[in-house]
Each structure stands twice: as C-alpha cells, then as structure tokens.
C-alpha cells in the first residue's frame, strides 16, 4: 500500500533583526533582578545605594515597610533597566534617577522621565509609555512598553 504520509521540509528564517523592525510601532524592554542581591547592595553601600539610584519618592515608598524595602527597590531597579532597554539608553549617559517609577493611589505604576531621559525619549517621539512590575520569591521583574511613531 502506498504510504499516505507525505514528508515536508520547513525552513524558518532566523536572521537577526532589531526588535523595532520585527514589531514596528512598539518599543519594549524587560529586566529581572534578584531581591537578595539588592538587599546585599543595601548592606554594602547603605544610603548611597538608595540615594544614587532612586528618587526621594521611590525611597520613601520602599522604606515604608522595612521588610519589603529590598523587594520594592528591586522591582524599581528592574523597571529602570527595562526602560533603558526599551529606549536604547544604555550609552546615553542617563542617570538612574532620571527614570522614576511613580506609584498611584490605586497601586498602579507609571514611569516618570526627567532631565536627559525625558529629553531623549521626547525626541524619539515615543508615547503611551507603560510599565508593569512584579515579584515572586527572590526575584522582581518589570516590563516597559511604548508606542513608537517611526
């Protein structure tokens, strides 16, 4: 009996292309941070670590509950790194405090950009910037997305 099975060969194009070319109109960045590593940084560098990386409001929120300080800072650090990736800021000479996570009364978060970060992202034309944070166990993560008009 003739086989009823046909075999086919498939090829998939895997040439690397920038994310912007794959998803026109969308910028996205993600980062994951180990909470215990943030705790270790606080242990090693104390106030300097907090003041250098986080805004007054970010520090105020994170330190409201001491047992959650490392977790909250870790999520915010991840958000800053996610924003740096989304907007290609790693070589732009942007301070971490220029990218701020703002927490609203209902618990939702948004991204506030200042100084050079605000200038560069403004020049890019990106709008509708969204950030989302999460944590589980010893890890915190954040994703930043934005609409890119180009």
């Amino acid at each position, binding site marked *: 009996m003739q086989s009823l099975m046909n075999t086919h060969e498939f090829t998939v194009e895997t040439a690397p292309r920038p994310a912007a070319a794959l998803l026109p109109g969308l910028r996205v960045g993600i*980062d994951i*941070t*180990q909470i215990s*590593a*943030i705790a270790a*940084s606080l242990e*090693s*560098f104390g106030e*300097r*670590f907090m003041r*250098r*990386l986080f805004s007054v409001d970010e520090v105020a929120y994170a330190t409201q509950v001491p047992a959650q300080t490392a977790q909250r800072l870790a999520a915010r*650090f991840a958000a800053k*790194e996610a924003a740096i990736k989304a907007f290609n800021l*790693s*070589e*732009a*000479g*942007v*301070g*971490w405090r*220029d990218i701020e996570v703002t927490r609203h009364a209902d618990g939702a978060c948004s991204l506030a950009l200042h*100084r*050079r970060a605000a200038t560069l992202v403004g020049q890019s034309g990106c709008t509708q910037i969204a950030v989302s944070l999460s944590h589980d166990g010893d890890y915190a993560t954040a994703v930043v997305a934005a609409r890119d008009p180009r």
Partner: protein
Amino acid sequence: MHAHQEFDAQIRTILAQHGRLAVDANALDADADLYQAGMSSHASVNVMLALESAFDLEFPDELLKRSVFGSIASIREAVTSIGVGQT
C-alpha cells in the same frame, strides 16, 4: 606604567569583590568584556559605587554608560578622566 598597573590592581580587587564575575578578575585582560565575563547590570552598579568609594569620586551622568564599565581599561580611562591618579 607603574601607576597604570596599580590602578588596574585596585579595579581588579573591586571587580573581584563586587562584579560577580564568572572568572577570576585577576586573570582577565584589561580589554576583556566584563559583561561577557558574567557582570550583570546590577553588579556594574555595585562596582560603580565601590569605585566611587575607593577613589573618592562620583561618576557624572555622562559617564553612566554601559561601555564605561565594560572593561578594566575603560574603567581606568573613566576614572582617570575624572581627574584621579593624574600626576
């Protein structure tokens, strides 16, 4: 050259303590990519803070670039550009 080597020795010590490298910092070439050697973005922050403490300086925002902390040589160049170690 001697001061250069002393600089690098200090940087290597800081990388060993804070860089969370997958390899021995003392075995790395000065131009070796530290991120390829295992340093994460968070670890680079710790390295930055340790450098600031060790050399009594503060990196200005314009030097807060991934590439600045990308190798022992680039770190040395950045620290020197701020004015440390110049004779």
